């Protein structure tokens, strides 16, 4: 079982021998070890530097727990996270899920189990990124439509043409806000043909 895409993994674990286990397994599976952090606090410092593709995180650690660190990572440096813990209580699983963790694996894991967890967490994370992007675009389009609807030159109430100063101001503001690259979309046929020439 080898990964098709070599992902960089950050190990966050306070027990050195357990770190050795994770490192050994990941190397066997073909992942690249981006670094090892002793707790959540150190992980936050390292993640900005090593930009891992995925983080494998213990829960009970000194200074900052894995759950707290996961929350902060998702907020500031969105990255797929796999929790690897000897605890498996429902409360902890729920807390991890709410912190944006992609998968939860119990120690000691089977290599295949660890592999599936990493890949699923990464896959879900990519989906999440895509979804976030779609949502961002949707919000932007919605905003544009809202602005355009205000530029309708005829009042749908009385059918009269809008000639007041307010309309002129809104129109002016919209024209100023059109990015230079997009301006072609808004040109009339004559101007467009002139531009094309």
């Amino acid at each position, binding site marked *: 079982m080898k990964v098709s895409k070599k992902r960089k993994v950050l190990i966050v674990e306070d*027990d050195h*021998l*357990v*770190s050795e*286990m994770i490192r*050994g397994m990941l190397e066997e599976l073909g992942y690249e070890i981006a670094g090892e952090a002793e707790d959540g606090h150190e992980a936050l410092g390292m993640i900005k530097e090593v930009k891992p593709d995925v983080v494998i995180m213990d829960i009970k650690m*000194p200074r900052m727990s894995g759950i707290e660190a996961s929350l902060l990572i998702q907020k500031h440096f969105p990255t797929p996270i796999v929790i690897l813990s000897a*605890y498996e209580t429902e409360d902890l699983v729920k807390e991890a899920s709410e912190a944006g963790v992609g998968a939860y694996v119990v*120690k*000691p894991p089977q290599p295949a189990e660890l592999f599936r967890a990493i890949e699923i967490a990464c896959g879900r994370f990519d989906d999440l990124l895509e979804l976030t992007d779609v949502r961002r675009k949707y919000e932007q389009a919605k905003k544009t439509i809202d602005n355009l609807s205000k530029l309708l030159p005829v009042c749908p109430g009385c059918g009269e043409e809008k000639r007041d100063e307010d309309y002129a101001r809104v129109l002016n503001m919209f024209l100023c806000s059109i990015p230079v690259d997009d301006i072609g979309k808004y040109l009339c046929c004559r101007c467009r043909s002139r531009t094309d020439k």
Partner: protein
Amino acid sequence: MHPGRMNGFYANGRERSQRVIENFDILSAVCIELNSHQDSSSVFKHIVDSAPLFEGIDSAGIYVLDNSSGEFILGYHTGLPGDFAESHSSFKRGSGLHEMLHCNETVYPCPSEGSSFTYEGSAQVFIKGLFPLMRSQAALTVMFIASSEPGALPQEIPRIMDIMLTMAEAALSRIDLESSARRSEMQHSLLLEGVRDPVYALGDNLEIKYCNEAFRQLVCFEEERIEKAAFSEVAGLELTNIMREKFDEALDPDNAFSYSEFEYRERIFNTFVSRTPDGLFVLMNDITEAEQTRKKLNFRERFESLLITISTDFIKMRGSALNLGINDALLNIGVSIEVDRAYLFQFSDAMKIINNTHEWCATNVQPQIDNQQVLKTDDYPWLMNRLTRHSAFQILSIPDLPSWAEAERELFESRDIQSVLVVPIVHGNSLIGYLGLDSVNHERYWSEDIIDLLRVVGDAIGNALVRNRMEKKLIEMYRRAEKEAQINAVLLREVNHRVKNNLSEIIGILYAQRRYASDNNDHDEFVQSLIGRIRGLATVHDMLSSSGWNPLELTRLVRRIINSAIANAPGGKKLKASISKTSIRVNPNQAHALALILNELVRNSLKHALTGRESLKIKVRMRKRRAGRIRLIYSDNGPGYPEEVLEHDRKNLGLDLIQNLTIKNLQGELTLQNDGGASAKIVFRRTRAEDKDESK
């Protein structure tokens, strides 16, 4: 012979007038005298005797009809010759005179053939007239007047006789009425004397007209004559003051009587004062006994109701509610029985100690509960002797206690009491306490009824107390079991976690050892070092699980790890370990890391320092440092670390593990140096949990 009579007739009108006047004078005198007679026979006698005083009348008499025989019997008579009286002592039915007598009408003058009514004997008797008397009476009474001479009587005689007989009837009626009144009064007196309660009648001026013996006794009036005496004089000031208002009420025109209840001379009276035509009539109904009985019944009813409430409520009561319930019950008992103090004592410590646990005191009575705590039962042998008999007892007077109850006397006197009632509280065969009632102000006797009722209260309290104690024990046991179950669940989770971590670490050791073993193909050494490391893990796991994953004594941990590692050293070598003593304790994670580090250090000493030597001395020194830090120095007397190790140029798994476990797991610092052999100094921080545990 009448003084005005001459040869039977008056000579002329003047004489007749004179005669008439004389006759009416006689009539007047006769009538006046009639009023002085007090019985009917003297009236009859008087009129019969008076008849011959009138002119023309020589004799008179009275015939009375005997209803049983139907004969007229001659009664009083005067002037009749003796043989007439004998021969005409009665008239049978059928005789002419009988018929005339029986018609109950005045017959005057008698018929001309009156001779037939005359007695012709030695002296002649001519019946002149018949006059019925007492016409309304059942016995027909007829008076006759007679003369010894024939001929008419003076003309005013019938009128005079009518008047005289009418006056006689009036006198007879008066006598009859007086007789009835006297009879009625006598009957009244007899009736009232038979009344057990004081009764008296007062006149208009509140003078006593009549009173019975009960009233005399009540007011202690010893003089024989009480009638006509003023009520205030007889009754005295107290009763007069009480009654004045009631008399006024009854005399009020708007009322006809007054009805009230009051106490007088320790008796309770229900008094009825009624207005009569000539004063007041008073009946003082003595309801003392009835009232006492009613009070007793009321008390019993209320007390039984209280008992039912107490018994029912106690079934539901738990914990502090039971304490409130007992206090409430003592209050109710105290108020109902009118005692000064009601309290509960309970035994503890196998009946060696007795405590006053609950108390109620009446107003102005000093509470004693604070002074009656932790009393040794051995100090009160008399009280304990009585209580262990399981029967209630009362002490009417504290000074009457026997001489061997000196301690009890002091105890009771300290409570300032006159009498005490003690009701033991028994559950099954066990005495669990007693219920006590104090009378502070006066000596008091409690009836068997009250004691019986209190015994029932005692039983209810006893049952509730025992049930409460058992429930407390059960709750305690349940809580303990629950706590143990929780601890076991936590321990199980911790064991599970530790086991998983240990397995992870073993896998980690294997991966690490494989990585370092790439340069070294000695399989035997690979296996031996693996066994040594896993044994180190096993040793610390054993120690931590035995202590329930609580902080461990550092000295004990170090000694165990080093001895365990030495025990697996090659044979034939002299190995000695010196470990300093310290009170430092380390938490499970630190203990785990230290155990692995020490295992590696000893393995390192045995591998490198013992080579070419027969003996090796290992020393471990531990000390607390400032700022909550701990310093542990491990050293041996071997050749020391090679230079490249000290300069970090040479890597091996053992040193790598020591380094990383110190930094990562212990968050400490490691310093390797040579000081008469290899020396490793580890400094790490103590955690708060250890400090707390150490303080325990």
